[in-house]
């Protein structure tokens, strides 16, 4: 039963990746004008100053002289075999760009998510389980503030206070773990806030369930009820949300990496979209889709462990 569930989910993941690749390809090729022209325009040179032969050789270099369907299948094949082509604006293989920039984003994403989980779960638990009334109220209001703060503003504020005034952390660049602190906080705040909001609500719901009343009647201790029963049941919606939020890490990284001058994938994505650097954009989109798919796959695989009814009750196609 579990094996069939897993293989179904994996097949779905592959289909999603293929669809992401295809949609990106179509969108990028439907855009007006071609990248070589943009490249020349960026250098303040109009196409007419370049001889037709030079233009043709530039186009050939990037495979832009082939029919669209040939480009589609060649690139699809290359992608499957791990060859992402060459960046048009930066003149280096895309794999090299990705391998240079990925570690920085992964480190940032991982620390931001870890921090978000700690903050989110912590705030929600305190809000629900706290016995001091005013603290309870304060903590339950906190998430809405966190969600409504614009991240770039939080980032600039963090820089002003902790980098320029107190000089505790570097404001820019990628200088080891201490460089991760401020951007991670900036990225973690909205994620933690959403997580806390959902978890608070579902914890409250869980505590009102009849089985909690039963457990109380049976004389189970407060902590056993809260952690073993209520929390486990309340975790499902939060886990689903976490999956979505993880997938959105890249979007948040674009802002964090711009504000904190970190050369990660988010930055690269932004630059490449502006330069219409098709091979890079495509690689990043597929990679982001892969991340999203893998995270959700993992979460799908965790569900049955939390709630065995999922494997039996749901048909996977």
């Amino acid at each position, binding site marked *: 039963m579990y094996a069939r569930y897993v293989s179904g989910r994996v097949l779905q993941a592959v289909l999603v990746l293929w669809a992401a690749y295809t949609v990106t390809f179509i969108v990028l090729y439907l855009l007006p004008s071609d990248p070589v*022209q*943009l490249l020349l325009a960026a250098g*303040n*040179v109009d196409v007419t100053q*370049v001889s037709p032969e030079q233009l043709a050789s530039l186009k050939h270099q990037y495979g832009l002289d082939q029919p669209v369907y040939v480009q589609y299948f060649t690139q699809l094949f290359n992608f499957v075999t791990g060859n992402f082509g060459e960046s048009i604006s930066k*003149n280096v293989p895309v794999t090299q760009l990705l391998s240079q920039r990925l570690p920085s984003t992964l480190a940032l994403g991982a620390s931001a998510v870890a921090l978000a989980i700690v903050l989110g779960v912590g705030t929600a638990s305190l809000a629900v389980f706290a016995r001091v009334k005013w603290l309870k109220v304060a903590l339950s209001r906190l998430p809405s503030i966190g969600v409504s703060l614009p991240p770039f503003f939080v980032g600039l504020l963090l820089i002003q206070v902790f980098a320029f005034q107190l000089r505790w952390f570097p404001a820019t660049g990628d200088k080891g773990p201490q460089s991760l602190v401020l951007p991670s906080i900036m990225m973690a705040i909205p994620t933690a806030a959403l997580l806390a909001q959902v978890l608070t609500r579902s914890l409250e719901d869980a505590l009102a369930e009849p089985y909690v009343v039963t457990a109380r009647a049976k004389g189970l201790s407060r902590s056993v009820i809260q952690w073993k029963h209520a929390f486990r049941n309340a975790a499902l919606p939060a886990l689903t949300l976490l999956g979505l939020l993880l997938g959105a890490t890249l979007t948040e990284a674009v802002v964090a990496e711009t504000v*904190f001058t970190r050369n990660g994938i988010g930055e690269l994505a932004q630059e490449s979209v502006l330069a219409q650097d098709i091979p890079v954009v495509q690689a990043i989109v597929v990679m982001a889709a892969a991340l999203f798919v893998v995270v959700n796959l993992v979460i799908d695989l965790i569900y049955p462990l939390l709630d065995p009814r999922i494997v039996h009750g749901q048909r996977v196609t």
Partner: protein
Amino acid sequence: MSFNPLRLKRRWAVAASVVTIAALTALTGCSGSSSDASSTGDTATPVAGGTLKLAFWDDQQGCIDPNQVYWIESRSIDRQIADSLTDQDPDTGKIVPWLATSWTTNDNATQFTFTLRDGVTFSDGEKFDATAVKTALDATYALGAKSLLGVSYLAGYDSTTVIDPTHVQVNFKTPNAAFLQATSTTTLAILAPKTYQETPEARCAGAIIGSGAFTLDNYTAATSAHLTKRADYAWPSSLVKNEGAAYLDAIDVTYIKEDSVRNGELSSGQIDIAWPRLPISDADQQVLKAAGDTIETRALPGISYVLTSNITGTKPLSDPLVRQALQKAIDRPTYASTVFWADYPVVKSPVESTTPFATDESSLLAFDLDGAKKLLDQAGWAVGPDGYRYKNGQKLTLDEPLTTSGAGDQLLQDQLKQAGIDLTLDVVTTAQYTQKTAAGDYDLVGTYYTRADPSVLGSVFDQALTKAPTAVNSQDAATAATISADFAKGLQTTDDTQRAAAYADLQKTLITAGVTFPLYERLQVSAVSPKVHGFAFTSEAFLRANDIWLEQ
């Protein structure tokens, strides 16, 4: 000696040209670096040592090869690594010796012979000689479209002949009087012959060896660059005071996109120079000055920020009267002081004041709202109930495609509204922009171009040189012929008086014919920590680090 009227005439001509050059000097001098440490008499004794930390805003091209790169920030780095045959005096625009000690040019500017400095080596130990010059120029020409600036700097290039190790001759198929200035640029910097065995891509990524005062240790596109000084350096340009190795041990370059973060890094002492592309805002300057930092400025030579017209078909600007009215309806002094700050220089010509042979055309560019209104009345555009002008039921609308729209664009829109002109700011993506301009689907487009020689106008406005929309759509046949003739005159002679005359005519024509509407000067503004002494701009407003030293 008998009296010779011809000789007297020549003497007058010489005197006249001396006056012209003196006027030019004064003109460019006053808009040059406002607080250049070397010119304001920094008397402290330089001390060696330290690492200069410099932050640019961005590195979008991601290339460091001086021969290929067009990104001006990269060229500031390249200036420290790679030397050129000549240099250009930022105050006078004059070409002065560097790796070439002297040169001669034939009258029609097709042959340039250089005498080379002896004893110069590249950082890998290779000797600099005539063969190295030939290798470099041939290889740069061979880059073709990969060297977007090289294409225009070497226009008409034929060959380079090695005469002997210290003499080299560069030959052109067509006159290129601007080539001498081109030899002072980083684009035509001479790299070690071994460099040219690398692929253009590898060179872009940092495989370059120069003869400069610094060597490039590493370069990661858009992330960082690290330069170390050459201890045995002894051949700076004649414009540099320090004749030996640089005072700085190293230069650390980073890129910080956020203005507030870059400025904060400077005021909190984490970097020494903040070098953005757009002028630092007045408010930020006040903060930086309060922290003791100095603000250095120099107008980027070349084409000012100008709007160019589309006069084709039945577009409103096809009527010369409307073009003249538009010229008068722009209030440039208000633009400069509102968008930038109170004493920001007002644009005086289609070229920046720091460009050699720039003339002061303020009178042709004066704000005259009543004059503009009168011209529009005369052209048959009557004011409608909404304040805009109409003719045969059609509104006087000028369409300007842009990729981003800022306060300046909106200010201009407001200024033109006073005359009844409806300026539509059409914000589009870069891709759409390229397509729209290529298709002539616009009334006005903005442009600029950095190069310290007036010939730079040719690649944007001369129909004989380019089929760019800015040239093709902006002139009728008669104006195009006049413009091409002036450009040809400017490129065919190396005589400064004749070049000055040709380029003066050109600047006037571009304004009066309504080919271009100068909007503002592009000022390079850099903020410098008080620790930094000896800061200097090159003629093209790039960094020159030879004289820089840090207070320890």
